[in-house]
């Protein structure tokens, strides 16, 4: 990759301070460590109460059923890092899943049904990106509008009916590769790839630069408008991938996505350490946060708490994480 700009590395390499590795890790990836700690703690506690919790099948169900949220959160993390937001992604995933399913049952080749959502997602979000970058409309306004348009379009096209009789080859989320469920592979590979790309490529670094200080980014010679459009387009591609996982995990495709899916995705991103003010965070954090939510959901069932309390517990946990993060940041400042 040709480096258009030379940004300094996150912090200078300093071999002499090798013993401070843990401290450095915590300073750079504090929020990720907190979330990981919460997951581990949750596992230990719940396993004490009900040993069946750490059953492999259960774990796989937890993780792969929520992988699509983690995949969508990767794109969301990039958008939020530039200091923008997208509240329409839930509706977009619904639309893209419907497109994939409709193509699959209408006799189009499977590969086509599985690539179309990615391309359409990119196209839709390119329009959103252009409106944000060149139309100078705040992203929350554009995506609020897009939310209405996509949601209305989805209901209009499907009329609320479910898509059934999906061809078996289409249901890739139910398959396994080397006995690992496909959604899990998607989640891990995409997270690691996106993390490395954002940390080491010039493009990835410019995402942080734009979010950290847009004016400085312009002064550095980063084509901010073009980058913003690209980031939204990439986010659309991840929404397409998420839609494919969502569409192929069951035998039917419901015409509705889980309510407030966009808020779940945004929350996972933010809890994972991506600052809503832009400029900081990693996609490892957002994936860990998705896993945390999924673990909480399953844990409640295993310790016999009514599922009706699930959201209250998640809400309380989000609040605790946010407050802990704020206190940690203030302590460091």
């Amino acid at each position: 990759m040709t480096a258009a700009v030379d940004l300094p590395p996150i912090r200078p390499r300093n071999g002499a301070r090798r013993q401070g590795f843990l401290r450095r890790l915590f300073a750079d990836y504090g929020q990720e460590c907190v979330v990981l700690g919460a997951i581990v703690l949750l596992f230990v506690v719940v396993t004490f109460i009900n040993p069946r919790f750490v059953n492999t099948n259960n774990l796989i169900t937890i993780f792969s059923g929520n992988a699509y949220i983690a995949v969508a959160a990767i794109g969301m993390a990039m958008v939020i890092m530039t200091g923008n937001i997208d509240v329409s992604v839930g509706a977009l995933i619904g639309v893209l899943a419907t497109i994939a399913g409709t193509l699959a049952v209408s006799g189009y080749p499977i590969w086509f049904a599985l690539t179309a959502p990615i391309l359409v997602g990119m196209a839709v979000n390119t329009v959103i990106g252009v409106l944000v970058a060149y139309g100078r409309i705040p992203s929350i306004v554009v995506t609020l509008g897009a939310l209405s348009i996509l949601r209305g379009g989805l209901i209009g096209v499907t009329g609320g009916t479910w898509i059934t009789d999906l061809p078996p080859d289409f249901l890739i989320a139910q398959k396994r590769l080397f006995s690992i469920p496909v959604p899990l592979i998607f989640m891990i590979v995409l997270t690691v790839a996106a993390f490395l790309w954002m940390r080491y490529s010039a493009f990835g670094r410019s995402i942080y630069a734009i979010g950290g200080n847009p004016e400085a980014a312009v002064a550095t010679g980063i084509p901010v408008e073009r980058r913003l459009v690209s980031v939204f387009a990439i986010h659309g591609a991840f929404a397409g991938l998420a839609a494919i996982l969502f569409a192929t995990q069951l035998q039917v495709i419901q015409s509705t996505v889980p309510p407030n899916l966009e808020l779940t995705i945004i929350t996972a991103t933010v809890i994972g350490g991506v600052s809503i003010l832009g400029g900081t965070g990693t996609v490892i954090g957002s994936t860990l946060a998705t896993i945390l939510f999924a673990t909480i959901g399953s844990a409640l069932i295993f310790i016999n708490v009514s599922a009706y309390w699930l959201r209250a517990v998640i809400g309380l946990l989000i609040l605790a994480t946010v407050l802990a993060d704020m206190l940690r940041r203030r302590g460091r400042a």
Partner: protein
Amino acid sequence: MNWRALIRHETFLALLLVLVLVVLSFQSDRFFTVANLLNQGRLMTEIGLIAIAMTFVIATGGIDLSVGSILGLVAILLGVFWQNVGMPLPMAMAAAIAAGTFAGFLNGFIITRFRVPPLIATLATLALYRGLAEGISQARSVRGYPDWFYVLGQGEVLGVPTQLWILFAAAVIASVILAYTRWGRTVYAIGSNEVASRFSGLPVETTKLALYTASGFAASLAAVIFVSRVSTTRSDMGTGIELDAITAVVLGGTSIFGGRGTIIGTIIGLCLIQALKNGLSLAGVKGDGTIMLIGAVLILAILVSNIFERSGSR
């Protein structure tokens, strides 16, 4: 006031509203009737109350995503206080509204004391309050309220739906506060430049705390009216209402970055959305087509107003 003062977002929006009303009344004879318009007013009161409080919040550069969840929580608490705890209904109403107002206060407390960005703080309490509503209700609904309670949501006073009087009063009071009081100017000042406001000795934290509390109160009031209108309580009430309210506020010309916005703009935005919803459904357009159109109107309105503003300032 000279004619230049009229070149602003609210004027364009009002013209658009008139245009929409004219076009829609040609599409269906049932649209431009007093009965229909009053009924539409009934339907927009809940979003309206929330949107009025939201105008203040957004004008400070903040946002409150938890209002829909507060609405759901208050509705559930109203039912529980009345039926399960056995309070008399007026007391249950007061207690539920107090709880919802406290929920708003808690938002403000988290935002001002811990310096959590409003979007994050209210995203967290959105999950928390809705979760509490679900947990407390265990998916049971409460019905069978006494007849007098329905006056609020289904009755009329002087031939106008009861809740429309409440919305009207709220809009007038809010306009006066925002436009003519020192407190209202403080709201704009915070939205334009929070740091400068703080250095100018303005009560930034107190104002914000009061605004989020007021937002909780507005959502609680909307909840009671909602329950009275639909005669039942469910824990999923008000889901997504925050986005409807924000749409109305932003369409009404309030800048999402703060510092600019009027109550009259919000009300016009609200009327425009409701007129489109109702008029198009009477004209035979399905509900989903209307939702799409509202989304497009939102984006276009802001785009056009941006273009005008840019050409005007140079």
